[in-house]
C-alpha cells in the first residue's frame, strides 16, 4: 500500500463521498463555526444536548476529504454520548492525529483509528482537527468561531 493509500483509507473515502449527519440542525443548543482560511476548510457543527448527554449532532460545510470525513465520523461516534466522554474522545483523537498514543487510548477511539495515518502528514493535521476544535468551541460556549491554522 502506498503512503497516500495509507492516509486515504477506504472508510475515510466512503465518509468523504457520503458524509453522515451532513445537515443544518435547527433548533440546536450549541454550535460553532470552524474555518481554516488558508486552505478553505469551512464547517459548522450543531449539537443538541441536555445537561449531561449529546442527544443529536450534525455538521455542514465544505472542505477536503480529511476534514469532511473527520466531521462525518465524529458525528456518528458522539451521538448519545455523555458530554464528558465526548470531550475525552476529542482529546484522544487530537493526540492520535499528531503523535504516537498508547494502545489503550487508541482502542477507545474505535473506528476513528482510521485517522491514525494523518500524523505522518503534518500539513494535514489541521484538517482532521478542525471539526473537533469546533465541537470543543461549541460545548465550551466560547467564541462560536474557531480555526486550527
Amino acid at each position, binding site marked *: 500500500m*502506498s503512503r497516500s493509500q495509507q492516509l486515504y483509507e477506504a472508510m475515510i473515502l466512503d465518509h468523504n463521498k457520503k458524509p453522515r449527519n451532513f445537515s443544518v440542525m435547527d433548533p440546536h443548543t450549541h454550535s460553532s463555526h470552524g474555518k481554516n482560511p488558508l486552505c478553505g476548510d469551512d464547517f459548522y457543527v450543531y449539537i443538541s444536548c441536555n445537561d449531561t448527554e449529546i442527544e443529536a449532532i450534525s455538521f455542514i460545510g465544505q472542505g477536503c*476529504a*480529511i476534514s469532511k470525513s473527520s466531521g462525518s465520523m465524529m458525528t456518528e461516534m458522539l451521538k448519545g454520548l455523555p458530554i464528558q466522554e465526548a470531550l475525552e474522545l476529542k482529546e484522544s483523537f487530537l493526540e492520535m492525529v499528531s503523535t504516537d498514543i498508547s494502545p489503550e487510548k487508541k482502542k477507545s477511539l474505535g473506528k476513528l483509528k482510521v485517522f491514525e495515518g494523518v500524523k505522518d502528514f503534518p500539513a494535514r493535521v489541521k484538517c482532521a482537527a478542525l471539526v473537533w476544535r469546533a465541537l470543543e468551541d461549541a460545548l465550551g460556549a466560547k467564541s462560536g468561531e474557531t480555526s486550527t491554522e
Partner: protein
Amino acid sequence: MLNPNIRKQFPVLKHIENGHELVYLDNTATTHKPLRVIERMTKFYTHQNATVHRGVYGLSQSATDYCEEARKKVQTFIKAKHEEEIIFVKGTTEAINLVAESFGRFHLKKGQEILITEMEHHANIVPWQQLCIKHGCTLQVAPIKDNGELNLEAWKAGINKNTGLVAFTHVSNALGTTNPVQEMCDFAKAAGVAVLIDGAQAMSHIEVDVQALNCDFYAFSAHKMHGPTGIGVLYGKHELLKIMPPYQTGGDMIDVVTFEKTTFAVPPARFEPGTPAIAEIIGLGETIDFLTEIGLNNIFHHEHTLLNYANIKLKEIKGLRIIGEAKEKNAIVSFVLDDIHPHDAGTILDTEGIAVRVGHHCAQPLMKRLEVPATIRASFSMYNTLEEVDKLVAGIKKIQGIML
C-alpha cells in the same frame, strides 16, 4: 527547449522526496537557485564579509562596490535610466508598502481613487486598502473576464479625473494571465495617473523595459527569479523618488542628524535605512548575470513549450478543468478536479515527489470571483522538462484512482 544539462546547475533538484526524484512545479511561490549564486554568496561571507558605506577600510569599500555593481546590473536588466532609481527592499511586498506609505500618503489627496484589478495578489490589495483607510482614498477594483483576462475596457473606464494611482500585476500568480502592461501604462499615463506594476511573476520570464513601459514604479522579488530570499527591488522614477519622504528612518539614510532636526539623504539611500542585505544584493547581481547569459528569450520559449504541452496533456484528463485561459499567459496552470479537493490532490502528488501549490494563492478575492475555494497550481521554470509534465499527468490519474 533549453539544454536539460541546465538542471545540473540547480543542486536542490537532486533532492529525493518520498522516494522520488523531486518534480518541482511551484516556481510561482519560489524558484531554485543556481550553484553560482549560492557560491557567490558563500564567497562573500567566507572571504569578503564587511558592511557597506564604511569605506575607510578595504573590505568595506569592496562590499560597497559589489552592492553598487549589483544596482547597476539591475538597472541594465530592467533598462532603467538611472541607477539611483533602483531601491533595494526585502521584496515585492515591501516595495508596494513603500510606495503606499511614501508616495500614497504624501502625494495622493483625500478623496482620490486607487484602481487595482480583481486578479491581484494580497500584496497588491492590502497596502492600498490600508492607505485608503488611513488617508481617505477609495479603492476601485476593475473586473476580470471569466477566462481570467483583465476586462480592459472596464479597467480603462475605471480611470477618471479622481484616479490618483493604478496598481496592477504584470503576470497573475494564481492564473498565469499576462496583462497588456504597455497598453495599460500608455492609457494611464495619458490620463496623468501614476502607475505601479507588481512584477513579481514577470521577472526572469519576460523582458522588462521600465522606460518603454513608462511606469512610475515597478516592484519585484529576487527569490522568484532564481535569486536569494529577503531581497527585492523597487524601481521608481527619479523625479518621484526625489520628492518622496522616507518610508523608514534610521541609519544610512540620513544627511545630517542633530537632536533637533534630521535631513535625509538623496535616493536611493533615503529609502534604504539600516544595514542592507549585503550578501543577498550581491547574490541578486550574480542571478542577473546568470539570467542574461541564458537569455530571457530562450527561457520564455522553453517555459512556453512546457505550458503548451501541459495544456494539451491536462485537457485530455476527464474531470479536470483549467482555471484561467487567457490568450497571453506565463507558464502557470491552475486547475481543479471534479469531486476532489485541491488539498487532497496536493498531498497525493507530494507522495509522488511532485511539488505543486494548492490553496487560494494569496488571492482570496480572485478565488471568490471564480467561485472556487482553491485550485491546484503547477508553475514551470527553466529547469522543468516535458517528462515532468508527464509525471504530473500520471500523478493526477493516481489521485483520481484513489479518490474517485
